[in-house]
């Protein structure tokens, strides 16, 4: 240790600080510590262990669910929740997480289409399907399912004219959508879900495995 006190043998009858070495050490210490206050932590980062979690809103919240097996044909022409799979529906509610102005919600849904082309050949001109992501939001009152981002639009085929040849777009295509929202109000989020609808009910979209996740990011 470089700052150890240097001890000097002293003469009998002299004060303990005789010779100045001890005084010099303490004085030096005082000089060098003059700019160290309670607010100087000498660190760029505070770990989560420094946060008093019981007294503050969530800094970051993550929720995720995935389906690792199973598939389903969705044929509804109005939105229905993507709910198939071995781990439950995409719709999941959880303990309300509070957010403030400027906090960020990031949501992602990824899925794979199956090989079922439905009746695409007879419905080339009505081959859209949509995926919409929603969060269960409130601004202090009752919570409502609110869309995040825009409806993602896909097609079952490549050719939308009635006449002509079409190539199916289905067949293990991997799709994904990511949206964020930056809240302008104080509220809470208590759920997420993905919904799907098709343009033509006889041309359903087969969805296989999927992954749904949401993050709430605060200060």
């Amino acid at each position, binding site marked *: 240790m470089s700052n150890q006190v240097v001890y000097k043998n002293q003469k009998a009858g002299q004060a303990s600080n005789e010779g100045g070495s001890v005084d010099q050490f303490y*004085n030096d210490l005082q000089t060098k510590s003059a700019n160290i206050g309670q607010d100087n932590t000498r660190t760029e980062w*505070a770990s989560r262990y*420094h946060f008093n979690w019981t007294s503050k809103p969530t800094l970051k919240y993550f929720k995720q669910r995935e389906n690792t097996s199973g598939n389903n044909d969705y044929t509804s022409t109005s939105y229905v929740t993507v709910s198939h799979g071995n781990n439950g529906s995409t719709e999941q509610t959880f303990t309300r997480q509070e957010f403030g102005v400027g906090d960020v919600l990031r949501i992602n849904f990824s899925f794979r289409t199956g090989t079922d082309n439905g009746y695409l050949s007879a419905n080339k001109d009505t081959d859209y399907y949509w995926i919409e992501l929603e969060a269960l939001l409130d601004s202090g009152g009752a919570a409502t399912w609110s869309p995040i981002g825009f409806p993602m639009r*896909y097609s079952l085929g490549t050719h939308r*004219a009635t006449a002509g040849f079409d190539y199916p777009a289905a067949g293990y295509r991997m799709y994904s959508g990511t949206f964020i929202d*930056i809240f302008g109000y104080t509220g809470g989020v208590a759920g997420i879900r993905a919904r799907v*609808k098709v343009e033509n009910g006889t041309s359903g979209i087969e969805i296989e495995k999927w992954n749904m996740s949401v993050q709430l990011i605060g200060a």
Partner: protein
Amino acid sequence: MARSYTKQCFDGVDQFKADHFNLEADGIAQQFNGQLDQNNMPLNSVEHDNMVVPVRTYNAHGVNTTSTYMPTQSYHFATFNIANDENVVAGEMVNPVSVYSKDWDTDDWDPYWNSFQPDMPQGDRIRFNAKEGMLIGGVTINMENRSGRVRGGSDPAFTRNAGEFNTAEIGIFCNGFLVGRSGRMNNGAHCLDIPYSTPIGNEFVEIQVKWFKEQYNIIDASGGTWTTVDVDHFRKIVISGVHTWCRNQYR
């Protein structure tokens, strides 16, 4: 205030030992020897009020970007969001008036990266002030390209598909540099989720999304162009939603 004596009590003829001073000085001196770091901040000492509240801004730089600036990072986004599920007309490809649609026969169309400006009100660009660190973000975009139907040339009674194998691409530019791209996409309506990342300095940033698409004309055996177009979908690129977002992780 430092002291210049030891707290050790002495009786007559006792000896002063170096340990008396060193022991008492150690506690202070060790602070200068590497222990004055994170541990100096008491655990559970940071309350929410001690944190810097995020600063949310909207349209600070003219392109309808929503931003939030946090102590260690910032987020930014803008969205072009139409009611793209409300205007589907049977027999019509993609032509609700509210989508972004370009036709290479009738509109400005460059054989390289095309800006969405001036015809997209927002969503294709975000602007913000970055701090040195990294930009990590993405573009989620509804892009649609289809094959068409032409009749032609030397045999007007014969029709065939057009532009079946055209490709189109989305590029993401950070202050003019390409930092992310979709790769070439075949026909169909696709919602693409394109990530990008790049180092950044303390500077003003504009993230801009652009598109590129091949043009394709059919030449028949006689060398004549099939000019009779039954379905013009192959000439178009259609965008029905853009969500551009970015996270700036400070260094």
